[in-house]
Each structure stands twice: as structure tokens, then as C-alpha cells.
């Protein structure tokens, strides 16, 4: 919303903003006091991992006729969704015990309830995994992106003001893949053939040639268009923040299919070498979408410590 810059004034002219934690001073009790329907639309960003977040989103769902999942985290789980690659116990152990800079000899861990100096304190519960918004409440629309670009936000706001919203459940972005609007698309050769995957961590892409053709894992083919290719224009291959195009049931598996098809390998050994040149498939192919993938999370056998 802040990205709208001066356009925010147009929005403020047309609507009343009843809640905006980052910019305006409304509290939980104000929201609790709303009549259902009094506030038309709630744009909710962020994934759900704390009991407090769950409480807030349920409340907003109760009060608002229209709920829009705003951004990758609410839409797909987002970067925090990669928390599903580890366990809650691993996260707490890392944060409060094992990390290099931690000095916690008594092994203190945050507790949902505690008493200090005669005060009873509460902390939200930290869930076992990360959930996208629609795993916990009914969602009417999705504004994709990390973050959603200003023009898409404005499109959504305009649609609401005009009463011209798309069918419920729509993602407010084009249905085509990023490649269709990417300026490097015309540089794609007839046949792409990748001998080895390249990484931006260890080499620099040529800004004037399709990144995938160069061997970088660009999520473009599996990702919705609509972002204006801000990353591509910054010489970074697409990371897939807009989520999959409508036909892809699982973004990562779909992209994996593409990478296999484009690989140049005529023996099992060459195929294995090609596969091993991709450093972190889950992190690359499901960077924003792990919680909404078919498998949803990684399985780790945990030691039961109690």
C-alpha cells in the first residue's frame, strides 16, 4: 500500500481506512467493536504461524465481507513458508541454543504463559508449521507478489470501488506465464539445452539473453506474469513470487519437469551430474510456495525428548 506513493491520496479520498497497523493507530478492541459488514474489505498479508495471527485473521474474516490475501506469504506461504523445511523444535533449538551468538546457559525458551514481578504474561503460541491464509480462513481473492506491484494493488482497489470484482477465488493477475511478457523471451533459441545449472551466487548472468537459456534456473515458465519483470530487469532470474499459472497443480514439480526436459544428457551418469549441479531444489523451486505444494512440508524424524 505504501508503494502506491501519491496514488494513496486517491485511495484515501475514496475510502475510509479503518485499520492499518503500520501507519494508523487502531487497536484490536476497535476491530472487535465493528459491526459485521461495517468494514467492506480486509487486505491481509503474511502467513500464519502464531496464535495471535490466527486470532486476528479469524476476526477480520468475521467482520469483513471481502478478504483479499495480500502478497506471497498470505497467498502461498511465502519465504516464511520455507520454515516448513525444518521443524519447530529445530527452529527453537537454533534460535535459543545452538546459534553462534546465543548465550543462554539456562536454556530459557519462550513460554506461552509466564509470571514475572507479579505480572502474568502471555506470548502467542508458535505453531508447528507455516500456513497460507486460506488454510485457516476462507479467502475471496489473492493479490500475488513479493510484494504485489502498485499497479496490481490499484487495479484491485479500483475493482472494489467500481463493484467489478472477478469470480471468487481469483488471483488478481494475468493467467499467462512470465515468459510471455519478459523482454528476454525473443532471445530464447528454438531449443534450449542445459548441460549444467548455473547459480547467481557463483557467476553473473548476461543481461541480454534469456536466463534459462544460459543455464540459470529462472522460474519464469512456471510463474504468473504481472509483476513487470522487476527482477529480470535487475539481472536476476525470476524466483517465482507470483506463484504458479492456473494449470500447474504444484509449482516446483512443474518446473522440475521443465528443467528435466531442457537438460542435455544422454546417459544416466550425465543426467545425475546435471541434477547434482542444482544446489537446492526445494529452496529454488518452492521458494515462495512450499506450504501450498502437494507435499506441503519436509518430513524429518524427530527425537522425542520427553
Amino acid at each position, binding site marked *: 500500500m505504501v508503494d502506491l506513493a501519491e496514488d494513496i491520496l486517491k485511495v484515501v479520498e475514496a475510502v475510509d481506512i479503518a485499520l492499518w497497523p503500520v501507519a494508523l493507530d487502531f487497536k484490536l478492541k476497535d476491530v472487535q467493536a465493528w459491526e459485521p459488514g461495517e468494514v467492506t474489505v480486509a487486505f491481509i498479508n503474511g502467513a500464519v504461524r502464531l496464535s495471535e495471527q*490466527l486470532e486476528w485473521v479469524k476476526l477480520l474474516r468475521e467482520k469483513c465481507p471481502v478478504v483479499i490475501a495480500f502478497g506471497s506469504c498470505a497467498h502461498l506461504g511465502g519465504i516464511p513458508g520455507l520454515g516448513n*523445511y525444518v*521443524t*519447530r523444535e529445530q527452529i527453537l533449538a537454533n534460535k535459543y541454543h545452538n546459534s553462534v551468538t546465543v548465550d543462554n546457559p539456562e536454556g530459557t525458551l519462550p513460554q506461552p504463559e509466564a509470571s514475572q514481578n507479579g505480572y502474568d504474561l502471555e506470548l502467542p503460541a508458535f*505453531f*508447528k*508449521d507455516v*500456513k497460507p491464509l486460506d*488454510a*485457516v480462513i476462507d479467502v475471496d481473492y489473492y493479490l500475488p507478489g513479493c510484494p504485489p506491484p502498485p499497479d496490481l494493488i490499484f487495479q484491485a482497489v479500483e475493482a472494489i470501488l467500481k463493484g467489478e470484482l472477478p469470480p471468487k477465488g481469483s488471483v488478481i493477475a494475468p493467467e499467462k506465464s512470465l515468459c510471455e511478457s519478459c523482454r528476454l523471451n525473443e532471445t530464447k533459441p528454438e531449443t534450449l539445452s542445459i548441460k549444467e545449472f548455473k547459480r547467481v551466487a557463483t557467476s553473473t548472468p548476461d543481461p541480454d539473453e534469456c536466463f534459462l537459456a544460459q543455464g540459470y534456473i529462472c522460474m519464469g515458465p512456471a510463474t504468473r506474469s504481472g509483476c513487470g519483470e522487476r527482477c529480470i530487469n535487475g539481472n536476476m532470474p525470476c524466483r517465482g513470487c507470483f506463484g504458479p499459472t492456473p494449470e*500447474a*497443480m*504444484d509449482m*516446483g*514439480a*512443474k518446473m*522440475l*519437469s521443465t*528443467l*528435466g*526436459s531442457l*537438460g542435455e*544428457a*544422454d546417459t*544416466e551418469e550425465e*543426467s*545425475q551430474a*546435471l*541434477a*547434482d549441479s*542444482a544446489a*537446492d*531444489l*526445494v529452496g529454488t*523451486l518452492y521458494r515462495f510456495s512450499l506450504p501450498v*505444494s*502437494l*507435499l*506441503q*512440508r*519436509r*518430513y*524429518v*524424524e*524427530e527425537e522425542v525428548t520427553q
Partner: protein
Amino acid sequence: MAHEQFEPKIVGFLCRWCSYTGADLAGTSRMQYPASLSAIRVMCSGRVDPTFVVKALADGADGVLIAGCHPGDCHYLEGNYKAMRRYPLLMNLLDQFGIERERVRLEWISASEGEQFAEVVKDMTEELRALGPLDWDGRKAALSEAI
């Protein structure tokens, strides 16, 4: 109560030209092998989108078999090469998800290799029986908040 042996469920994506025909031969020759595999005929092993494999595992399969023509014999010339290139990528991905490698196999089975098909299913069934059910729903539930 009689001891119930775990019967693994395998989903098999078999190519229409070679592997499905080979599996059919195993049947018409009355070869005995476990009834653990549900066959899905595809036109080519190259048609097998890794999404199919992931979905099968997520939806309750204990193992998945992808079977196609031997390299060089693909009816569509190159299709099985695509399967061959996708397979190690998929295996590396499944490693990261915490799914045992033994659960997904790529085999080259020709139309005349009925016996080999039966052997693969026998072998895979026993391997999965020893490994136990995948029970992905259960594994997920152990590490997810029930909201």
C-alpha cells in the same frame, strides 16, 4: 487377531508401447506376482510429469514405478530420455522432502520383458514392505499444527 501384513500400494506409470505391453505379457503368461501395483498407461515415459509422482505419494501411494522403453527404443525417439533426465532431479527433490529413494523407481521394460516386469514388482513390493507405509498424511500431521 491374525497378524496383518502391510500390503504396499504402488502406482505404476507404464508406457503404452513397451512397458504396459510387457506388463500385459506378464498377465497373459499367468506369471505370479503381488497385486500391489495399480497400472496407469501413458503414451510414453516422457509423459510422466513429476507432479504425477509427487501427487501419488502425497495421496497415499507407498511407492511409484515409472517404466518406459529402453533408451534408443522409444516409440517417440526421445521421450524416454526426458524421463531419464527428470528422474535424478526428482530423486534429489524427494531426498530433501524426506521421502526414501526406494519408493520411486525408473525402469526400462520392453514389450517382451514380462518376466522382468513381474520381478520388478515383486522386488519393489518386498522392499516397500520392509520400509513400511509412507503414510505421508501421517508424517505431515506429526509436524503440522491441526487448526
